[in-house]
Protein backbone atom coordinates (compact mmCIF):
# COMPACT_ATOMS: atom_id res chain seq x y z
CA UNK A 1 0.00 0.00 0.00
CA UNK A 2 1.31 3.46 -0.94
CA UNK A 3 -0.21 5.23 2.07
CA UNK A 4 2.14 5.71 4.99
CA UNK A 5 1.26 3.81 8.18
CA UNK A 6 -1.63 1.69 6.86
CA UNK A 7 -4.04 0.72 9.61
CA UNK A 8 -5.46 -2.75 10.18
CA UNK A 9 -7.33 -4.78 12.75
CA UNK A 10 -6.11 -8.16 13.98
CA UNK A 11 -9.29 -10.19 14.00
CA UNK A 12 -11.85 -10.64 16.71
CA UNK A 13 -14.41 -8.24 18.14
CA UNK A 14 -16.72 -8.99 21.05
CA UNK A 15 -20.05 -10.43 20.02
CA UNK A 16 -23.02 -8.33 21.20
CA UNK A 17 -25.56 -9.79 23.64
CA UNK A 18 -28.41 -9.67 21.11
CA UNK A 19 -26.34 -11.85 18.80
CA UNK A 20 -25.36 -14.38 21.46
CA UNK A 21 -28.99 -14.70 22.58
CA UNK A 22 -30.02 -15.67 19.07
CA UNK A 23 -27.10 -18.04 18.50
CA UNK A 24 -27.55 -19.82 21.85
CA UNK A 25 -31.32 -20.12 21.61
CA UNK A 26 -32.18 -23.69 20.64
CA UNK A 27 -35.64 -22.62 19.51
CA UNK A 28 -34.19 -20.34 16.83
CA UNK A 29 -33.82 -22.04 13.45
CA UNK A 30 -30.60 -22.24 11.45
CA UNK A 31 -31.90 -19.76 8.86
CA UNK A 32 -32.43 -17.05 11.46
CA UNK A 33 -29.03 -17.78 13.00
CA UNK A 34 -27.38 -17.47 9.60
CA UNK A 35 -29.13 -14.13 9.11
CA UNK A 36 -27.88 -12.94 12.52
CA UNK A 37 -24.32 -13.92 11.59
CA UNK A 38 -24.63 -12.03 8.31
CA UNK A 39 -26.02 -9.00 10.15
CA UNK A 40 -23.18 -8.96 12.66
CA UNK A 41 -20.53 -9.50 10.00
CA UNK A 42 -21.98 -6.64 7.94
CA UNK A 43 -22.18 -4.39 11.00
CA UNK A 44 -18.58 -5.14 11.96
CA UNK A 45 -17.28 -4.44 8.47
CA UNK A 46 -19.07 -1.08 8.39
CA UNK A 47 -17.91 -0.16 11.91
CA UNK A 48 -14.30 -1.03 11.19
CA UNK A 49 -14.45 1.01 8.01
CA UNK A 50 -16.10 3.91 9.84
CA UNK A 51 -13.20 3.85 12.31
CA UNK A 52 -10.99 4.54 9.30
CA UNK A 53 -9.10 1.24 9.04
CA UNK A 54 -7.44 0.47 5.72
CA UNK A 55 -7.62 -3.33 6.11
CA UNK A 56 -10.77 -4.88 7.50
CA UNK A 57 -12.51 -8.19 8.09
CA UNK A 58 -15.72 -9.12 9.89
CA UNK A 59 -14.54 -9.18 13.52
CA UNK A 60 -14.64 -12.99 13.29
CA UNK A 61 -18.42 -12.75 13.64
CA UNK A 62 -18.94 -16.37 12.60
CA UNK A 63 -16.21 -17.89 14.73
CA UNK A 64 -16.91 -18.60 18.41
CA UNK A 65 -13.16 -18.35 18.91
CA UNK A 66 -10.01 -18.59 16.75
CA UNK A 67 -9.15 -22.15 17.86
CA UNK A 68 -12.48 -23.78 18.67
CA UNK A 69 -14.03 -22.87 15.33
CA UNK A 70 -11.21 -24.60 13.48
CA UNK A 71 -11.05 -27.79 15.52
CA UNK A 72 -14.81 -28.19 15.12
CA UNK A 73 -14.37 -28.03 11.35
CA UNK A 74 -11.31 -30.23 10.92
CA UNK A 75 -11.39 -34.01 11.28
CA UNK A 76 -9.41 -35.74 14.02
CA UNK A 77 -10.19 -33.36 16.88
CA UNK A 78 -12.56 -33.88 19.79
CA UNK A 79 -13.37 -31.04 22.21
CA UNK A 80 -12.20 -31.80 25.76
CA UNK A 81 -13.32 -28.80 27.81
CA UNK A 82 -12.44 -25.38 29.15
CA UNK A 83 -8.90 -24.31 29.97
CA UNK A 84 -7.84 -20.89 31.20
CA UNK A 85 -6.24 -18.35 28.91
CA UNK A 86 -6.03 -15.65 31.60
CA UNK A 87 -8.17 -14.47 34.52
CA UNK A 88 -11.65 -15.82 33.80
CA UNK A 89 -11.02 -16.02 30.05
CA UNK A 90 -11.21 -19.65 29.00
CA UNK A 91 -11.05 -21.44 25.68
CA UNK A 92 -12.27 -24.91 24.77
CA UNK A 93 -9.31 -27.13 24.21
CA UNK A 94 -9.48 -30.23 22.02
CA UNK A 95 -7.86 -33.65 22.02
CA UNK A 96 -6.35 -35.00 18.81
CA UNK A 97 -7.77 -38.51 18.70
CA UNK A 98 -7.32 -39.38 15.02
CA UNK A 99 -5.44 -38.29 11.90
CA UNK A 100 -6.30 -34.65 11.14
CA UNK A 101 -8.22 -34.21 7.89
CA UNK A 102 -9.39 -31.27 5.81
CA UNK A 103 -13.17 -31.47 5.61
CA UNK A 104 -13.61 -28.39 3.44
CA UNK A 105 -12.84 -24.64 3.21
CA UNK A 106 -14.13 -23.67 6.63
CA UNK A 107 -13.54 -19.92 6.17
CA UNK A 108 -14.80 -19.63 2.62
CA UNK A 109 -18.38 -18.48 3.33
CA UNK A 110 -17.27 -15.70 5.63
CA UNK A 111 -14.52 -14.57 3.25
CA UNK A 112 -16.93 -14.37 0.32
CA UNK A 113 -19.36 -12.35 2.42
CA UNK A 114 -16.65 -9.90 3.52
CA UNK A 115 -15.27 -9.60 -0.02
CA UNK A 116 -18.74 -8.77 -1.25
CA UNK A 117 -19.42 -6.04 1.32
CA UNK A 118 -16.07 -4.48 2.23
CA UNK A 119 -15.02 -1.21 0.62
CA UNK A 120 -11.49 -1.38 1.98
CA UNK A 121 -8.75 -3.97 1.59
CA UNK A 122 -9.67 -7.37 3.05
CA UNK A 123 -7.25 -9.26 5.28
CA UNK A 124 -8.44 -12.68 6.41
CA UNK A 125 -7.11 -14.18 9.66
CA UNK A 126 -6.40 -17.92 9.60
CA UNK A 127 -5.19 -19.87 12.64
CA UNK A 128 -1.84 -21.47 11.86
CA UNK A 129 -0.76 -25.11 12.15
CA UNK A 130 1.70 -24.71 14.99
CA UNK A 131 -0.83 -22.96 17.23
CA UNK A 132 -3.52 -25.53 16.47
CA UNK A 133 -1.15 -28.30 17.48
CA UNK A 134 0.27 -26.53 20.50
CA UNK A 135 -3.14 -25.73 21.93
CA UNK A 136 -4.38 -29.30 21.58
CA UNK A 137 -3.77 -32.43 23.62
CA UNK A 138 -2.03 -34.84 21.28
CA UNK A 139 -3.28 -38.33 22.02
CA UNK A 140 -2.84 -39.72 18.50
CA UNK A 141 0.43 -38.74 16.80
CA UNK A 142 3.78 -40.16 17.82
CA UNK A 143 5.20 -36.66 18.10
CA UNK A 144 4.06 -33.06 18.11
CA UNK A 145 6.11 -32.55 14.94
CA UNK A 146 4.06 -35.19 13.09
CA UNK A 147 0.87 -33.41 14.12
CA UNK A 148 2.13 -29.94 13.19
CA UNK A 149 3.29 -30.97 9.71
CA UNK A 150 0.13 -32.95 8.98
CA UNK A 151 -1.89 -29.85 9.86
CA UNK A 152 0.37 -27.61 7.76
CA UNK A 153 0.37 -29.74 4.60
CA UNK A 154 -3.03 -31.39 4.71
CA UNK A 155 -5.29 -28.86 6.42
CA UNK A 156 -3.98 -25.30 6.31
CA UNK A 157 -2.36 -25.41 2.86
CA UNK A 158 -5.53 -26.64 1.10
CA UNK A 159 -7.54 -24.04 3.02
CA UNK A 160 -5.21 -21.20 1.96
CA UNK A 161 -5.34 -22.38 -1.65
CA UNK A 162 -9.14 -22.48 -1.57
CA UNK A 163 -9.20 -18.96 -0.13
CA UNK A 164 -6.84 -17.55 -2.74
CA UNK A 165 -8.85 -19.25 -5.48
CA UNK A 166 -11.84 -17.35 -4.10
CA UNK A 167 -9.91 -14.08 -4.33
CA UNK A 168 -8.08 -13.67 -0.99
CA UNK A 169 -5.14 -11.33 -1.51
CA UNK A 170 -3.94 -10.77 2.05
CA UNK A 171 -3.86 -13.60 4.58
CA UNK A 172 -2.81 -13.19 8.20
CA UNK A 173 -1.68 -16.48 9.71
CA UNK A 174 -2.36 -16.31 13.44
CA UNK A 175 0.39 -18.06 15.36
CA UNK A 176 0.17 -16.76 18.94
CA UNK A 177 1.83 -19.95 20.15
CA UNK A 178 4.91 -19.44 17.95
CA UNK A 179 7.25 -18.27 20.67
CA UNK A 180 5.86 -20.48 23.43
CA UNK A 181 8.55 -23.13 23.16
CA UNK A 182 11.81 -21.51 22.00
CA UNK A 183 13.33 -24.92 21.24
CA UNK A 184 10.55 -25.59 18.72
CA UNK A 185 11.10 -22.43 16.69
CA UNK A 186 12.53 -24.37 13.74
CA UNK A 187 9.47 -26.64 13.77
CA UNK A 188 7.19 -23.60 13.74
CA UNK A 189 9.03 -21.95 10.84
CA UNK A 190 9.19 -25.08 8.68
CA UNK A 191 5.54 -25.95 9.29
CA UNK A 192 4.52 -22.37 8.49
CA UNK A 193 6.48 -22.50 5.23
CA UNK A 194 4.88 -25.82 4.33
CA UNK A 195 1.44 -24.31 4.93
CA UNK A 196 2.02 -21.29 2.68
CA UNK A 197 3.95 -23.14 -0.05
CA UNK A 198 2.53 -22.21 -3.44
CA UNK A 199 -0.07 -19.84 -1.97
CA UNK A 200 -0.44 -16.78 -4.15
CA UNK A 201 -1.23 -14.01 -1.64
CA UNK A 202 0.45 -11.54 0.68
CA UNK A 203 1.16 -13.57 3.82
CA UNK A 204 1.51 -11.90 7.20
CA UNK A 205 2.02 -13.57 10.56
CA UNK A 206 0.48 -12.45 13.86
CA UNK A 207 2.31 -13.46 17.04
CA UNK A 208 1.51 -12.07 20.47
CA UNK A 209 2.32 -12.26 24.18
CA UNK A 210 5.72 -13.77 23.73
CA UNK A 211 7.16 -14.62 27.12
CA UNK A 212 10.60 -13.38 26.12
CA UNK A 213 9.72 -10.29 24.12
CA UNK A 214 10.16 -12.07 20.77
CA UNK A 215 13.83 -12.84 21.35
CA UNK A 216 13.23 -16.51 20.56
CA UNK A 217 11.82 -15.61 17.12
CA UNK A 218 15.27 -14.93 15.73
CA UNK A 219 17.30 -16.05 13.88
CA UNK A 220 14.88 -18.79 12.75
CA UNK A 221 12.17 -16.30 11.77
CA UNK A 222 14.46 -14.93 9.07
CA UNK A 223 13.44 -18.01 7.07
CA UNK A 224 9.71 -17.50 7.61
CA UNK A 225 7.95 -17.06 4.27
CA UNK A 226 5.89 -14.00 5.11
CA UNK A 227 6.13 -10.33 4.25
CA UNK A 228 4.94 -8.88 7.56
CA UNK A 229 5.18 -9.62 11.29
CA UNK A 230 2.18 -8.30 13.20
CA UNK A 231 3.18 -8.11 16.85
CA UNK A 232 2.04 -6.94 20.28
CA UNK A 233 3.93 -4.12 22.03
CA UNK A 234 1.54 -1.65 23.72
CA UNK A 235 0.86 -4.12 26.54
CA UNK A 236 4.36 -3.50 27.94
CA UNK A 237 4.67 0.18 27.18
CA UNK A 238 4.27 3.28 29.35
CA UNK A 239 1.45 5.78 28.77
CA UNK A 240 3.90 8.71 28.65
CA UNK A 241 4.26 10.70 25.46
CA UNK A 242 7.71 10.78 23.93
CA UNK A 243 10.10 9.19 21.50
CA UNK A 244 12.74 8.29 24.09
CA UNK A 245 13.68 4.74 24.99
CA UNK A 246 12.31 4.96 28.54
CA UNK A 247 8.87 6.15 27.46
CA UNK A 248 8.73 3.56 24.69
CA UNK A 249 10.04 0.68 26.78
CA UNK A 250 7.45 -1.67 25.28
CA UNK A 251 8.87 -1.34 21.78
CA UNK A 252 12.43 -2.48 22.39
CA UNK A 253 11.81 -5.84 20.70
CA UNK A 254 11.75 -3.94 17.39
CA UNK A 255 15.52 -3.72 17.72
CA UNK A 256 15.65 -7.42 16.95
CA UNK A 257 14.71 -6.66 13.34
CA UNK A 258 17.66 -4.27 13.13
CA UNK A 259 19.97 -6.66 14.94
CA UNK A 260 19.20 -9.50 12.52
CA UNK A 261 18.92 -7.33 9.40
CA UNK A 262 15.29 -8.26 8.78
CA UNK A 263 13.84 -5.57 6.49
CA UNK A 264 10.27 -6.81 6.29
CA UNK A 265 7.15 -4.91 7.34
CA UNK A 266 6.07 -4.87 10.97
CA UNK A 267 2.46 -4.45 12.05
CA UNK A 268 3.01 -2.56 15.28
CA UNK A 269 0.57 -3.06 18.16
CA UNK A 270 -0.22 0.43 19.44
CA UNK A 271 -3.23 -0.19 21.69
CA UNK A 272 -3.45 -2.60 24.60
CA UNK A 273 -6.38 -4.99 24.20
CA UNK A 274 -6.49 -5.95 27.86
CA UNK A 275 -7.29 -2.58 29.44
CA UNK A 276 -10.32 -0.33 29.02
CA UNK A 277 -8.42 2.96 29.07
CA UNK A 278 -8.46 4.54 25.62
CA UNK A 279 -5.00 5.47 24.38
CA UNK A 280 -5.00 9.10 23.14
CA UNK A 281 -4.06 9.69 19.47
CA UNK A 282 -0.89 11.54 20.54
CA UNK A 283 0.39 8.47 22.41
CA UNK A 284 -0.41 6.27 19.41
CA UNK A 285 1.40 8.75 17.17
CA UNK A 286 4.51 8.55 19.34
CA UNK A 287 4.44 4.75 19.35
CA UNK A 288 4.22 4.73 15.54
CA UNK A 289 6.99 7.30 15.11
CA UNK A 290 9.22 5.45 17.55
CA UNK A 291 8.70 2.21 15.62
CA UNK A 292 9.52 4.01 12.36
CA UNK A 293 12.68 5.40 13.97
CA UNK A 294 13.90 1.97 15.07
CA UNK A 295 12.97 0.25 11.81
CA UNK A 296 14.62 3.15 9.93
CA UNK A 297 11.88 3.22 7.31
CA UNK A 298 8.34 4.49 7.92
CA UNK A 299 7.11 2.49 4.93
CA UNK A 300 7.74 -0.71 6.85
CA UNK A 301 5.34 0.27 9.64
CA UNK A 302 1.72 -0.92 9.68
CA UNK A 303 -0.48 0.08 12.59
CA UNK A 304 -2.76 -2.27 14.51
CA UNK A 305 -3.99 -3.19 18.00
CA UNK A 306 -1.84 -5.63 19.97
CA UNK A 307 -4.28 -8.46 19.27
CA UNK A 308 -7.97 -9.07 18.60
CA UNK A 309 -10.24 -6.83 20.65
CA UNK A 310 -12.78 -9.46 21.70
CA UNK A 311 -11.92 -9.06 25.38
CA UNK A 312 -13.09 -5.40 25.36
CA UNK A 313 -16.64 -4.09 25.12
CA UNK A 314 -17.59 -2.97 21.64
CA UNK A 315 -17.67 0.67 22.77
CA UNK A 316 -14.11 0.43 24.09
CA UNK A 317 -12.92 -1.51 21.03
CA UNK A 318 -14.26 1.06 18.58
CA UNK A 319 -12.94 3.99 20.62
CA UNK A 320 -9.49 2.38 20.59
CA UNK A 321 -9.64 1.70 16.85
CA UNK A 322 -10.85 5.24 16.12
CA UNK A 323 -7.94 6.70 18.08
CA UNK A 324 -5.58 4.26 16.39
CA UNK A 325 -6.59 5.75 13.04
CA UNK A 326 -6.35 9.32 14.38
CA UNK A 327 -2.92 8.55 15.81
CA UNK A 328 -1.79 7.22 12.42
CA UNK A 329 -3.03 10.47 10.84
CA UNK A 330 -0.98 12.48 13.33
CA UNK A 331 2.07 10.33 12.59
CA UNK A 332 1.62 10.88 8.85
CA UNK A 333 1.47 14.65 9.43
CA UNK A 334 4.61 14.47 11.53
CA UNK A 335 6.39 12.69 8.70
CA UNK A 336 5.52 15.31 6.10
Amino acid at each position, binding site marked *: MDKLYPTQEIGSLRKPEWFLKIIRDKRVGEGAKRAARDDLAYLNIRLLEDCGLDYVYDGEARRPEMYEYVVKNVGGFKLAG*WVRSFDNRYYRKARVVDKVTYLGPYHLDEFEFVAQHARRMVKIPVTGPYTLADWSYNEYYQSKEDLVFDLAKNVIRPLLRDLTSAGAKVIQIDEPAAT*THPKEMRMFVEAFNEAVAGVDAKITVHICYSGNQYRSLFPEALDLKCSQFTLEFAN*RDTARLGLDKESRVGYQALNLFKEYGDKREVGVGVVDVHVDSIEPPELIRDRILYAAKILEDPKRVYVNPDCGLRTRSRAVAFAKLRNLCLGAELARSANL
Partner: protein
Amino acid sequence: MKVGCYIGGIYPRSERLIEATRRNPPNLAEICRRDKKRVIDLQVKAGLTYISDPLLDWDDMLRPYLALKGVEQGALNRIFEQNTFYRMPLVVERVEWVEPITLKHLSVDLLPKSRDWKVDLPDPYTFAQLSDNRYYKDHRDLVLDLAKALAKEAETLQQRFKLIQINAPSICSIRSREELDSAYEALKTVTKGLSAKTYLHLYFGDPTPILNDLLDFPVDGLGLDLVNTEIPKGLRFGKMGLAAGCVDAGNTRMEKPKKVAEELKSVVDAVEPREVYVCPNYDLEYVPRAYANRKVRRLSKIAKILEEAM
Protein backbone atom coordinates in the same frame (compact mmCIF):
# COMPACT_ATOMS: atom_id res chain seq x y z
CA MET B 1 7.91 -47.01 53.15
CA LYS B 2 4.70 -45.04 53.50
CA VAL B 3 3.58 -43.44 50.25
CA GLY B 4 1.34 -40.38 50.26
CA CYS B 5 -0.26 -38.25 47.58
CA TYR B 6 -1.45 -34.68 47.10
CA ILE B 7 -2.24 -32.04 44.51
CA GLY B 8 -0.98 -28.49 44.36
CA GLY B 9 -1.57 -25.10 42.80
CA ILE B 10 -4.71 -24.03 41.01
CA TYR B 11 -7.40 -26.57 40.10
CA PRO B 12 -9.58 -26.04 36.99
CA ARG B 13 -12.83 -24.16 37.49
CA SER B 14 -16.02 -26.01 36.62
CA GLU B 15 -17.92 -24.82 33.56
CA ARG B 16 -20.63 -23.63 35.94
CA LEU B 17 -18.17 -21.44 37.85
CA ILE B 18 -16.58 -20.07 34.65
CA GLU B 19 -20.01 -19.12 33.37
CA ALA B 20 -21.05 -17.63 36.73
CA THR B 21 -17.84 -15.60 36.96
CA ARG B 22 -18.62 -14.20 33.51
CA ARG B 23 -22.12 -13.18 34.60
CA ASN B 24 -20.93 -12.00 38.04
CA PRO B 25 -24.20 -12.65 39.93
CA PRO B 26 -24.59 -11.43 43.56
CA ASN B 27 -24.12 -15.01 44.86
CA LEU B 28 -20.89 -15.64 42.90
CA ALA B 29 -18.87 -16.14 46.11
CA GLU B 30 -21.31 -18.83 47.23
CA ILE B 31 -21.18 -20.57 43.83
CA CYS B 32 -17.40 -20.57 44.07
CA ARG B 33 -17.46 -22.00 47.60
CA ARG B 34 -19.76 -24.81 46.49
CA ASP B 35 -17.38 -25.59 43.64
CA LYS B 36 -14.42 -25.56 46.03
CA LYS B 37 -16.27 -27.92 48.35
CA ARG B 38 -16.73 -30.40 45.50
CA VAL B 39 -12.99 -30.43 44.82
CA ILE B 40 -12.19 -30.76 48.51
CA ASP B 41 -14.65 -33.66 48.82
CA LEU B 42 -13.02 -35.27 45.78
CA GLN B 43 -9.61 -35.08 47.45
CA VAL B 44 -10.98 -36.60 50.65
CA LYS B 45 -12.83 -39.36 48.82
CA ALA B 46 -9.79 -40.13 46.66
CA GLY B 47 -7.77 -40.54 49.86
CA LEU B 48 -5.18 -37.82 49.35
CA THR B 49 -2.78 -37.46 52.27
CA TYR B 50 -3.05 -33.68 52.43
CA ILE B 51 -6.14 -31.72 51.49
CA SER B 52 -5.83 -28.27 49.97
CA ASP B 53 -8.00 -25.35 48.94
CA PRO B 54 -8.26 -25.69 45.12
CA LEU B 55 -7.76 -21.92 44.69
CA LEU B 56 -10.62 -21.68 42.21
CA ASP B 57 -10.88 -17.94 42.87
CA TRP B 58 -7.20 -17.25 42.15
CA ASP B 59 -6.54 -15.83 38.69
CA ASP B 60 -2.90 -16.87 38.85
CA MET B 61 -0.46 -18.05 41.50
CA LEU B 62 0.99 -14.59 42.11
CA ARG B 63 -2.17 -12.49 41.87
CA PRO B 64 -3.02 -12.32 45.62
CA TYR B 65 0.54 -11.20 46.37
CA LEU B 66 0.11 -8.05 44.31
CA ALA B 67 -1.23 -6.84 47.67
CA LEU B 68 2.33 -6.66 49.01
CA LYS B 69 3.50 -3.10 49.57
CA GLY B 70 5.58 -1.92 46.64
CA VAL B 71 3.93 -4.26 44.13
CA GLU B 72 1.33 -3.35 41.50
CA GLN B 73 -0.37 -5.18 38.67
CA GLY B 74 1.74 -5.27 35.52
CA ALA B 75 1.42 -6.53 31.96
CA LEU B 76 -0.04 -9.83 30.89
CA ASN B 77 2.70 -12.37 30.36
CA ARG B 78 2.96 -16.02 29.41
CA ILE B 79 3.35 -18.59 32.20
CA PHE B 80 6.56 -20.26 31.06
CA GLU B 81 5.71 -22.37 28.00
CA GLN B 82 1.97 -22.57 28.66
CA ASN B 83 -0.86 -20.97 26.73
CA THR B 84 -2.01 -19.42 29.98
CA PHE B 85 -1.07 -15.94 31.11
CA TYR B 86 -0.52 -14.14 34.39
CA ARG B 87 -0.24 -10.54 35.44
CA MET B 88 3.38 -9.66 36.05
CA PRO B 89 3.92 -8.16 39.49
CA LEU B 90 5.19 -4.64 38.79
CA VAL B 91 7.70 -3.70 41.48
CA VAL B 92 7.62 0.06 41.90
CA GLU B 93 9.06 0.52 45.39
CA ARG B 94 10.59 -1.46 48.22
CA VAL B 95 8.62 -4.67 48.83
CA GLU B 96 7.21 -5.00 52.33
CA TRP B 97 4.75 -7.29 54.08
CA VAL B 98 1.88 -5.44 55.71
CA GLU B 99 -0.76 -8.04 56.58
CA PRO B 100 -1.56 -11.73 55.92
CA ILE B 101 -2.43 -12.34 52.29
CA THR B 102 -2.65 -16.08 51.64
CA LEU B 103 -5.11 -16.78 54.46
CA LYS B 104 -7.38 -14.04 53.20
CA HIS B 105 -7.58 -15.84 49.87
CA LEU B 106 -8.31 -19.32 51.24
CA SER B 107 -11.57 -20.94 52.32
CA VAL B 108 -10.08 -22.61 55.38
CA ASP B 109 -13.52 -23.30 56.87
CA LEU B 110 -14.23 -25.70 54.01
CA LEU B 111 -11.23 -27.91 54.76
CA PRO B 112 -12.07 -31.09 56.73
CA LYS B 113 -10.96 -30.95 60.37
CA SER B 114 -10.21 -34.66 60.44
CA ARG B 115 -7.50 -34.43 57.77
CA ASP B 116 -4.12 -32.77 57.37
CA TRP B 117 -4.02 -29.66 55.19
CA LYS B 118 -1.51 -28.27 52.76
CA VAL B 119 -1.08 -24.85 51.19
CA ASP B 120 0.89 -23.29 48.30
CA LEU B 121 3.33 -20.41 48.52
CA PRO B 122 5.47 -18.86 45.77
CA ASP B 123 9.22 -19.22 46.01
CA PRO B 124 10.84 -15.75 46.38
CA TYR B 125 13.40 -16.31 43.62
CA THR B 126 10.63 -17.34 41.19
CA PHE B 127 8.46 -14.42 42.29
CA ALA B 128 11.30 -12.02 41.50
CA GLN B 129 12.04 -13.66 38.15
CA LEU B 130 8.42 -13.39 37.10
CA SER B 131 8.17 -9.73 38.13
CA ASP B 132 8.79 -6.56 36.20
CA ASN B 133 11.31 -4.89 38.50
CA ARG B 134 11.37 -1.13 38.09
CA TYR B 135 12.74 -0.27 41.52
CA TYR B 136 15.64 -2.41 42.69
CA LYS B 137 19.06 -1.78 41.20
CA ASP B 138 20.26 -5.16 42.39
CA HIS B 139 17.91 -8.04 41.56
CA ARG B 140 19.20 -9.96 44.56
CA ASP B 141 17.81 -7.28 46.88
CA LEU B 142 14.38 -7.84 45.39
CA VAL B 143 14.70 -11.60 45.97
CA LEU B 144 15.68 -11.08 49.59
CA ASP B 145 12.91 -8.55 50.33
CA LEU B 146 10.38 -10.91 48.77
CA ALA B 147 11.83 -13.68 50.94
CA LYS B 148 11.25 -11.60 54.07
CA ALA B 149 7.67 -10.88 53.00
CA LEU B 150 6.94 -14.51 52.13
CA ALA B 151 8.52 -15.65 55.41
CA LYS B 152 5.87 -13.60 57.20
CA GLU B 153 3.25 -15.35 55.07
CA ALA B 154 4.70 -18.76 55.94
CA GLU B 155 4.56 -17.86 59.64
CA THR B 156 0.84 -17.14 59.36
CA LEU B 157 0.27 -20.52 57.67
CA GLN B 158 2.40 -22.95 59.62
CA GLN B 159 0.02 -23.44 62.54
CA ARG B 160 -2.83 -24.60 60.36
CA PHE B 161 -1.11 -26.35 57.49
CA LYS B 162 1.04 -29.44 57.88
CA LEU B 163 2.65 -29.06 54.47
CA ILE B 164 3.68 -25.93 52.59
CA GLN B 165 4.30 -26.49 48.89
CA ILE B 166 6.72 -23.85 47.67
CA ASN B 167 6.32 -23.35 43.93
CA ALA B 168 9.69 -22.69 42.33
CA PRO B 169 9.59 -23.19 38.55
CA SER B 170 12.18 -20.46 37.90
CA ILE B 171 14.79 -22.29 39.97
CA CYS B 172 14.82 -25.02 37.29
CA SER B 173 16.69 -22.79 34.87
CA ILE B 174 19.37 -21.54 37.28
CA ARG B 175 22.81 -22.38 35.97
CA SER B 176 25.09 -20.05 37.96
CA ARG B 177 26.41 -20.39 41.49
CA GLU B 178 25.50 -16.80 42.33
CA GLU B 179 21.85 -17.27 41.36
CA LEU B 180 21.69 -20.60 43.15
CA ASP B 181 23.03 -18.95 46.30
CA SER B 182 20.44 -16.21 45.99
CA ALA B 183 17.61 -18.77 45.68
CA TYR B 184 19.05 -20.75 48.61
CA GLU B 185 19.33 -17.70 50.89
CA ALA B 186 15.80 -16.65 50.06
CA LEU B 187 14.40 -20.09 50.84
CA LYS B 188 16.35 -20.23 54.07
CA THR B 189 14.62 -17.02 55.12
CA VAL B 190 11.20 -18.45 54.28
CA THR B 191 11.59 -21.87 55.89
CA LYS B 192 13.58 -20.88 58.99
CA GLY B 193 11.92 -22.13 62.17
CA LEU B 194 8.79 -23.43 60.45
CA SER B 195 7.00 -26.32 62.09
CA ALA B 196 5.22 -27.24 58.84
CA LYS B 197 6.85 -29.58 56.36
CA THR B 198 8.11 -27.75 53.25
CA TYR B 199 8.35 -29.17 49.73
CA LEU B 200 10.02 -27.24 46.92
CA HIS B 201 8.22 -27.95 43.65
CA LEU B 202 10.24 -27.67 40.45
CA TYR B 203 8.47 -27.78 37.07
CA PHE B 204 8.22 -25.95 33.73
CA GLY B 205 11.93 -26.54 33.22
CA ASP B 206 14.77 -28.96 33.74
CA PRO B 207 16.34 -28.82 37.22
CA THR B 208 18.47 -31.94 36.74
CA PRO B 209 21.78 -30.09 36.09
CA ILE B 210 21.48 -28.47 39.54
CA LEU B 211 19.68 -31.29 41.32
CA ASN B 212 22.72 -32.24 43.34
CA ASP B 213 22.81 -28.73 44.80
CA LEU B 214 19.06 -28.67 45.36
CA LEU B 215 19.37 -31.72 47.60
CA ASP B 216 21.07 -29.41 50.12
CA PHE B 217 18.33 -26.78 50.00
CA PRO B 218 16.59 -25.92 53.30
CA VAL B 219 13.37 -27.82 52.62
CA ASP B 220 12.03 -31.26 53.57
CA GLY B 221 11.50 -32.48 50.06
CA LEU B 222 11.70 -31.78 46.35
CA GLY B 223 8.77 -31.96 43.95
CA LEU B 224 9.95 -33.02 40.50
CA ASP B 225 8.24 -33.27 37.11
CA LEU B 226 8.93 -36.90 36.30
CA VAL B 227 6.81 -36.77 33.14
CA ASN B 228 9.22 -34.45 31.34
CA THR B 229 12.50 -34.93 33.21
CA GLU B 230 14.55 -37.85 34.40
CA ILE B 231 16.53 -37.91 37.63
CA PRO B 232 20.23 -38.43 36.80
CA LYS B 233 21.65 -41.84 37.70
CA GLY B 234 23.62 -42.13 40.90
CA LEU B 235 21.78 -39.40 42.81
CA ARG B 236 20.63 -40.28 46.34
CA PHE B 237 17.97 -38.21 48.08
CA GLY B 238 19.00 -39.30 51.59
CA LYS B 239 17.18 -37.08 54.09
CA MET B 240 15.22 -35.35 51.35
CA GLY B 241 11.69 -36.46 50.47
CA LEU B 242 10.40 -36.80 46.92
CA ALA B 243 7.10 -35.47 45.58
CA ALA B 244 6.99 -37.43 42.35
CA GLY B 245 5.15 -35.52 39.63
CA CYS B 246 4.20 -38.58 37.62
CA VAL B 247 0.66 -37.66 36.57
CA ASP B 248 0.70 -35.36 33.55
CA ALA B 249 -1.19 -32.12 34.12
CA GLY B 250 -0.35 -31.14 30.54
CA ASN B 251 -2.26 -33.86 28.69
CA THR B 252 -5.72 -35.39 28.80
CA ARG B 253 -4.32 -38.85 28.16
CA MET B 254 -5.03 -40.93 31.27
CA GLU B 255 -2.21 -42.63 33.12
CA LYS B 256 -2.31 -46.36 33.73
CA PRO B 257 -1.81 -46.58 37.52
CA LYS B 258 -0.02 -49.93 37.49
CA LYS B 259 2.45 -48.87 34.80
CA VAL B 260 3.16 -45.51 36.47
CA ALA B 261 3.61 -47.17 39.87
CA GLU B 262 6.11 -49.64 38.40
CA GLU B 263 8.11 -46.86 36.78
CA LEU B 264 7.99 -44.85 39.97
CA LYS B 265 9.19 -47.79 42.03
CA SER B 266 12.35 -48.02 39.98
CA VAL B 267 12.94 -44.29 40.53
CA VAL B 268 12.36 -44.59 44.27
CA ASP B 269 14.63 -47.65 44.50
CA ALA B 270 17.36 -45.71 42.73
CA VAL B 271 17.22 -42.38 44.60
CA GLU B 272 16.15 -43.68 48.03
CA PRO B 273 14.20 -40.66 49.31
CA ARG B 274 13.16 -40.39 52.96
CA GLU B 275 9.50 -40.44 51.91
CA VAL B 276 7.46 -40.34 48.71
CA TYR B 277 4.37 -38.46 47.61
CA VAL B 278 2.62 -39.12 44.31
CA CYS B 279 1.59 -35.85 42.63
CA PRO B 280 0.70 -34.28 39.31
CA ASN B 281 3.79 -32.70 37.70
CA TYR B 282 2.19 -29.25 38.16
CA ASP B 283 -1.18 -27.51 38.66
CA LEU B 284 -4.05 -29.50 37.19
CA GLU B 285 -5.63 -26.31 35.86
CA TYR B 286 -4.01 -27.05 32.49
CA VAL B 287 -6.52 -29.81 31.77
CA PRO B 288 -10.31 -29.40 31.82
CA ARG B 289 -12.10 -30.16 35.08
CA ALA B 290 -13.43 -33.63 34.17
CA TYR B 291 -9.93 -34.81 33.24
CA ALA B 292 -8.42 -33.28 36.38
CA ASN B 293 -10.95 -35.17 38.50
CA ARG B 294 -10.02 -38.44 36.84
CA LYS B 295 -6.33 -37.75 37.35
CA VAL B 296 -6.86 -37.03 41.07
CA ARG B 297 -8.49 -40.44 41.49
CA ARG B 298 -5.53 -42.04 39.74
CA LEU B 299 -3.06 -40.42 42.14
CA SER B 300 -4.24 -42.41 45.11
CA LYS B 301 -4.40 -45.60 43.04
CA ILE B 302 -0.78 -45.13 42.02
CA ALA B 303 0.23 -44.37 45.62
CA LYS B 304 -1.54 -47.50 46.86
CA ILE B 305 0.07 -49.78 44.27
CA LEU B 306 3.47 -48.26 44.95
CA GLU B 307 3.12 -48.61 48.72
CA GLU B 308 2.21 -52.27 48.37
CA ALA B 309 5.22 -52.82 46.13
CA MET B 310 7.69 -51.13 48.48
